[in-house]
């Protein structure tokens, strides 16, 4: 839990969520679980990634929550996937493995509340998590 003193962050916690925790859930349950973790002021590292429509629903639900939860200003979100520039056969292999595993386990999704995470800066070679001071 992050504590704020005079507007400054005293500390924060990082939570890791293995994909097995959300594998059996439907989209609504997954998004609800993720948003609950983020609303508790945690930076979430989720093993794997959501489906494309779940990612947009997460953004949409975040916007709706902003209207209901005071001081919630949204999230910073990034998905790091090792297979972004694979060729056809590479993608085929990854898709096959994902289908067997039930998700793209080679990816990591990072979600943090915008009040703590200033920016998740990424380029093809590195990813930086910039926190608010």
């Amino acid at each position, binding site marked *: 839990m992050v504590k704020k003193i005079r507007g400054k962050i005293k500390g924060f916690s990082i939570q890791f969520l293995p994909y097995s925790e959300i594998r059996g859930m439907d989209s609504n349950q997954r998004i609800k679980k993720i948003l609950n973790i983020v609303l508790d002021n945690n930076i979430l590292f989720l093993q794997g990634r959501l*489906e*494309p429509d779940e990612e*947009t629903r997460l*953004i*949409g639900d975040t916007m709706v929550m902003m*209207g209901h939860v005071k001081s919630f200003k949204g999230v910073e979100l990034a998905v790091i996937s090792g297979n972004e520039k694979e060729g056809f056969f590479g993608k085929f292999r990854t898709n096959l493995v994902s289908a067997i595993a039930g998700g793209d386990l080679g990816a990591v999704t990072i979600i943090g509340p915008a009040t703590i995470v200033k920016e998740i*800066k990424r380029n093809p070679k590195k990813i930086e998590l910039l926190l608010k001071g």
Partner: protein
Amino acid sequence: MVVKAFKNFFKRIFFNLFKSKKELKLGFYGPPNAGKTSLANRICKDFTGEEIGAVSKIPHETRTVQFKEKVEIDYKGKKMLFKMIDTPGIATKIDYEDFLKYRMKKKDAKIRAKEATQGVVESIKWLDDMDVVVIVLDATENPYNQVNLTIIGNLVARNIPVLIVANKVDLRKASTKKIEEAFPEYDVIGISAKYGKNLEEFYESIFKLAKEA
């Protein structure tokens, strides 16, 4: 045999006539302040004489979905009819304090932030209804933004043809190459909506894409 060929010929003509009159829904998506409305305005002004919406330096100027129906784009003698759909910029966070930097009053900034969140929800809802989508990105910004990747991922999942536009190439910091490197599987056209630069190539790509829709 001759009768069959004759029949097919007329069938094709009628099909093409019908097809050419169909109004394709052309959506403009992207992050806030990338120039979606500027580009939509440029096209609407060129072919209808009217603009679609207001533009501003302050992010989230477009907070509701805006339309312009029956926009007939005429390019090199070919004509196509579009319904232009300009959407609010999609973001994962909106802070009213960011608007205060533009000398906006606190009360107005809060209203703008609230409307902007509703605009994002509306934009996402409209994704399903598009025939063709133009993703407008600011060529001076880092393209590896999760919002861009999420929008494109959704359009691909829905089989909606996508064209990526690198806008603001008139600025010194702009790099179309960076956007091409970030999205190697897509056509990327560098343009300046503000000055109407490279719109010929844009129209050509739109016509190509519209045929896929």
